[in-house]
């Protein structure tokens, strides 16, 4: 037939994905993440120390306020307790800010290069995982200093922090796509970070929250990460199954929603940049 004349391929609408398999996509993702690292750390003389300084200062300040001004005698080792909350929260706020602006930050690429656009928010979130890892190392080191030891429940930490990364990818996909259409979204995100700081049990424990409100806390994966992390690190026990269950459902749901929303809005991204 005449259609088979040149290459045997059929006429089809052009797609943004000229790749045959997923391998190239991983190569692209790796390069975008590396680009972020290199740019960020090549221009800082103190480099990664900044990732440590911020949570340490916050830990010091919060510990001062909540042991000297508002004493919390029920919570031993308040510094470690606070740091357990600060580390997941810091990742949340940094990854969400970077993810939200990722399409505009990379607009020269979005407008001119053919590649699946969902790679940009995901790369922004993954690039922030380096900070997250450094801060996790800091958290574990400080916990060790206060006498907490490795226990057999530590593998759970990998799962809960991994779920947080998936949750952040989903959330960043949504906010990044919306930010292209409405630039106000980044300010909403910044404002929501402030709200989140108070609504995640960073300097208080879930037990202090009135019982009927606790369910709302557990539906927030960041709060759930903090709660589950403390159960493992500070109480040497497996995370509460309810907490894990809620967190898994919400995180995976958010990831799915992120891909769906992004897929809907992807079509006209280049025209709105």
């Amino acid at each position, binding site marked *: 037939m*005449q259609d088979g004349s*040149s290459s045997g391929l*059929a006429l*089809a609408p052009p797609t943004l994905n000229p790749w045959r398999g997923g391998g*190239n996509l991983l*190569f692209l993702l790796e*390069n975008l993440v590396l680009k972020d690292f290199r740019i960020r750390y090549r221009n800082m003389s103190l480099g990664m120390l900044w990732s440590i300084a911020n949570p340490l200062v916050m830990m010091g300040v919060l510990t001062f306020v909540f042991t000297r001004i508002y004493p919390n005698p029920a919570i031993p080792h308040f510094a470690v307790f606070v740091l357990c909350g600060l580390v997941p929260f810091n990742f949340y706020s940094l990854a969400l800010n970077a993810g939200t602006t990722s399409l505009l930050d990379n607009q020269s*690429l979005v407008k001119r*290069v053919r590649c699946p656009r969902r790679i940009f928010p995901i790369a922004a979130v993954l690039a922030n995982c380096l900070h997250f890892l450094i801060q996790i190392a800091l958290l574990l080191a400080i916990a060790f200093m206060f006498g907490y030891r490795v226990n057999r429940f530590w593998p759970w930490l990998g799962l809960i922090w991994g779920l947080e990364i998936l949750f952040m990818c989903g959330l960043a996909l949504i906010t990044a796509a919306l930010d292209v259409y409405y630039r106000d979204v980044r300010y909403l995100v910044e404002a929501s970070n402030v709200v989140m700081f108070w609504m995640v049990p960073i300097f208080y424990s879930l037990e202090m929250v009135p019982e009927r409100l606790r369910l709302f806390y557990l539906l927030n994966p960041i709060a759930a990460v903090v709660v589950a992390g403390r159960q493992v690190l500070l109480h040497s026990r497996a995370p509460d199954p309810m907490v894990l269950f809620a967190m898994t459902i919400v995180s995976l749901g958010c990831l799915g929603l992120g891909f769906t929303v992004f897929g809907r809005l992807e079509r006209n991204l*280049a025209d709105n940049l």
Partner: protein
Amino acid sequence: MNPNAALPSAAAHDRGAPAATQARAAPVPAPVLRFDKVSKTYAHGASRTLLRRGLMAWLTGTRSDVFYALRNVSFELSPATSLAVVGANGAGKSTLLRCATGISTPDAGRVQVRGTIAALMELGAGFHPDLTGAENVMLNASLLGLTRQQTYAQFDRIVEFSGLAKFIDEPLRTYSSGMVLRLAFSVAVRVDPDILVIDEVLAVGDTEFQEKCIAEIIGLKQSGKTLIFVAHQLALLRQLCEQALWLEHGELKMFGPSAEVIDAYEAAPPPASL
């Protein structure tokens, strides 16, 4: 069972008949790129990137004025032909290329391609000044769709073609603008699509490098690639392309052999401003 079995063969017969008559009448090869009544509109003035404006438009039900970047454009491109796209600034050339590559989607009509299509638009768009030449080569190759194996295999060839081996580990901000473009072009020609879109990139580097680029492009042409050019060097387009397409205010003014179209384009008075 019986009626079901009869259907496919009937369909195959229907498809077979016109193909046979067409083959007898004129051996027209199947197109590699087809635009079918393609239109693309943009909202007038600022796009609705403000929440307030979007809310107002949604609440009041008003639709902002639109203007046509492309209006009802139809054409077909045969395999292994090169197409020049000419027209004044703002005539819709870039929009046409974006629709062809899938970066933008048309509001009406249909774009179809056969095989893979890649675009060299604004060379070095993915380059970052703080990364070294080598790091930029890797990033850019991955953005253009090369696999890890392809990139590693081609890396030395890319560096050699650029002639920048001595500077490849220096940050890009130490390069001159000509050097950046050389590096970008060297990566871009290593992508191996069936259709290659080349937007305003022929004015690259010094004369010697330009000749190298043109030789490379002629090589691609001879290997049976379909090339689509946008450039303002009409003499070069006349030499490189068999077909030309003239856009004015988003409408297809003329499409045909490049010599005729470019002659007419040169003879025409500049279009009234928008």
